[in-house]
């Protein structure tokens, strides 16, 4: 029951926020943060308890079945944490509507990660697009971006739907996520897998299905893009873990090479493009494309160690990309631009901002002791153990490139001569620092003790 409360609370609160007066910004934010924090607590209290209610008995069994699995618990925890931080960091126009959308986004995504039924998963898959669509339409820089995001991901959602229907008909039930079920085999399995995989690959995204992603990430306001890049992009990878590997392992194994090849191309392509971007948010967006390619490789390898590493890296990427986007949001808010060419030397007057950005960037480039390193190392060892050498070589090249573009990002913003034409404003205040501190702390904790994630 508590798990149901966890999902319904942000949804209900988001819907009810529209009843608050529009002008009352601080009340809105307080309510939003309070709800988000309560959701963190209820999620932890709910643990892996389950709640189920029958939905369909024909043409296949389906249920409103919620409950965290050991994997999804950590992703859900990441989601609730990032959401709380992002709502606290929200300072956009029309704040009430924005916070309401953030809560709806959190609720729909919690539904997705806690769903134990494929049909429910498909339902939330489409549903979680809607708040982001309205976020892009209402606060984005270009309306066309909203359409591109929606149509791309809706197309993915439709193949997911078809695959779900086919799976349900063949298997007789969709209430299968996180259960020890006999894998689906037969002539249809590869086609069903193809339907799922297309949706997952669009969402992650991997090259060449990524073209919706850079404009979406650079167009969204920082708090929302923090949630989207940190958690929504993990929906596809979670799908591969919880649906692909669990239900269709043979199909995943048979088509591992294309998956790893796509991951490797994304890894290199994202890194190279990130090197030459001028827009700081786009650097992080392309770095995201690159980093998540590594997880795709890990999933393709199917090695147990690599999969553990994949989970660690999913969490790590969520933490540092959320921190990076929030901090870049603060930079943009102070300097009214996010172009590297027009910024520089901010760090001299803003040591706290510089320090926080430094930790996040170092985590992203894989510095030992921070979460990114732990994930990368486990994935690389695991993939190598599985007998794949070329993806490891590609990944190592990409990691070197990651150091280059992340240090370039940091140095162009924080070091160097101060750009005289931009006004320099105050450093992070305690409230702003508090919105990123939990993320940075979690980066250190997971970096030092990654085993916590699979010892639950």
């Amino acid at each position, binding site marked *: 029951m508590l798990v149901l409360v966890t999902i319904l609370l942000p949804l209900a609160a988001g819907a009810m926020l*529209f009843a608050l007066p529009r002008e009352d910004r601080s009340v809105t934010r307080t309510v939003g943060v309070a709800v988000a924090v309560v959701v963190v607590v209820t999620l932890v209290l709910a643990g892996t308890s389950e709640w189920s209610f029958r*939905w*369909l008995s*024909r*043409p*296949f069994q389906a249920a*409103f079945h919620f409950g965290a699995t050991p994997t999804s618990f950590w992703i859900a925890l990441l989601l609730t944490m990032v959401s709380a931080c992002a709502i606290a960091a929200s300072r956009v126009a029309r704040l009430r509507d924005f916070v309401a959308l953030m809560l709806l986004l959190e609720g729909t995504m919690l539904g997705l990660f806690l769903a134990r039924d494929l*049909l429910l998963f*498909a*339902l*939330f898959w*489409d*549903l979680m697009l*809607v708040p982001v669509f*309205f976020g892009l*339409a*209402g606060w984005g820089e270009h*309306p066309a971006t909203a*359409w591109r995001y*929606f*149509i791309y991901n*809706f*197309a993915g959602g*439709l*193949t997911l*739907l*078809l695959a*779900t*229907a*086919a799976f*349900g*008909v063949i298997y007789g039930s969709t209430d299968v996520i996180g259960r020890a079920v006999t894998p689906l085999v037969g002539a249809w399995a590869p086609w069903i897998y193809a339907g799922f995989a297309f949706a997952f690959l669009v969402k992650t995204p991997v090259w060449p299905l990524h073209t919706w992603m850079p404009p979406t990430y650079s167009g969204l306001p920082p708090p929302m893009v923090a949630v989207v890049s940190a958690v929504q992009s993990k929906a596809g990878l979670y799908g591969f873990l919880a649906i692909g590997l669990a239900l269709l392992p043979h199909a995943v194994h048979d088509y591992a090479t294309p998956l790893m090849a796509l991951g490797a191309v994304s890894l290199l392509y994202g890194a190279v493009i990130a090197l030459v971007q001028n827009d700081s948010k786009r650097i992080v967006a392309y770095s995201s494309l690159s980093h998540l390619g590594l997880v795709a490789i890990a999933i393709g390898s199917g090695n147990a160690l690599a999969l553990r590493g994949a989970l660690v890296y999913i969490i790590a990427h969520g933490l540092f990309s959320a921190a990076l986007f929030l901090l870049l949001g603060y930079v943009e808010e102070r300097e009214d631009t996010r172009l590297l060419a027009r910024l520089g030397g901010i760090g001299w007057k803003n040591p706290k901002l510089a320090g926080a950005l430094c930790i996040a960037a170092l985590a992203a480039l894989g510095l030992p002791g921070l979460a990114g390193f732990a994930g990368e190392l486990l994935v690389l060892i695991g993939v190598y153990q599985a007998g794949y050498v070329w993806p490891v070589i590609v990944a190592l090249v990409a990691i070197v490139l990651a150091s280059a573009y992340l240090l370039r990002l940091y140095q162009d913003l924080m070091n160097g001569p101060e750009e005289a034409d931009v006004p320099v404003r105050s450093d992070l205040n305690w409230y702003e620092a508090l919105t990123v501190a939990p993320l940075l702390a979690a980066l250190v904790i997971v970096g030092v003790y990654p085993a916590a994630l699979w010892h639950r």
Partner: protein
Amino acid sequence: MTLPFTSADWWAVAPVSVVAVAALLVLVADIFSGRREQRYLSVFIALGGLIVAGVVAGRQFGHNYNAFFGGFLAGGFATVFQEIVLIAAAGSVILYAAMGPVARVAGSIAIMLWSACGAMLMAGAANLIMIFLGLELLSLGLYALCATDDRTSSRESALKYLILSSTATAFLLFGAALLFGATGSVQLADLANPSQVSNPLFWSGAGMFLIGLVFKLSLVPFHTWTPDVFEGAPLPVTAFMSVATKAATIAVFARFIYAAVPASVQERLLLPVWIVAGISMIAGNVGMLAQRNLKRLLGYSGIAQVGYILVALAGGTPLGLRYALYYLTAYALMNLGAFAVAAAISRDAEEGAHLHTYQGLARQHPWLAAAMTILLLALAGLPPTAGFLGKILILASSVSAGFVWLAALLIVGTAISLYAYAQVIRAMYAAAKGQPSQARPFVPLACVSAGICAAAVVVMTFYPLTPSNVLPLAH
């Protein structure tokens, strides 16, 4: 002279009779009512009649009865379709509370109710004569209703509908005559005779009968009249046509393919229909993309939506019929709700049809815009709406029946449709240009209707009512 009918026969058509009598009451009450309450009075009498008819029809559910020597089959199948027709009539009649010249409201409502009688007869028709009778009763009313507006386009629409619909009926009638020639019987049940398999008369008759139905369902390639007629007809009539006509025709179609086609020829005979349904899903959704008029947009949308419903029927499984009914009900609610929103924001000549009327609606009427958003997302098949669940049920039934290519076409069509439906949503949430659309006096009733439809569409996701007991028996 005594009629050879028993009271049970009359009881079988009681829902139809109630609606017909309600139409008479509307006309009588209109004579004695003053100008101020005229509009409301007609609407409420009609709604009352429809509700009584709905209750009466509901009591027949599960009691199959073969009335009028096998001409009319009351019971599960007929009841469900009759209820859908009644919902369609109620949802359309309510719109008269918001629009149309007062002097013509009572007459229009009465004709609409009689048209609904025709549709209800079609729902239960079990022989060729009853099918034709119901179809003509339905269509004759609609020809008149299309012309009730003063606009030129309204008359154009009526004429177009008259000519093309008569052509379709001619096909249907000729097909029926050939079928009678082949079997010597007008009963649908007698058509399902395996000995007909090699009879060329049966093949040509069934083929022409199906062409007539496909024409009425406005599937490609017989679809071009639909957007024009929908655009020209008054808004309530468009709403009624988009739901009731399609529901009644699907009822006949379903009964024909489930009960009257011999199992051995089903696959060969019906394959062209499924191909036509597949093309319609693509063509209807592509046609929607360029529309700037809500009525035309929903006209094209209806072409595709009927395609989806036929996908559920492909394969002829009992489960497929239940899913078709689920989706048809959802479609009825979505369309009626969308038209109710259009009526609620309508100005006299425009009838809330042009997309620019919707600009800035979210600022002025946030709840109306929210309802419209839900209804349009439901038409596009997004969760949490009945459109989503209906699509997955249809996909499941078509995949299990082996029509994977139809399922794939459905997916492609849906992907295209999202963009078209979202154009309206985009207009609603965009900033308003020009003067805001004024609300009109009787708007609340239309708003209530839109709200009920939107809520029902969401609730249907969580309570997937797919009645069993609806197999279309023919005898």
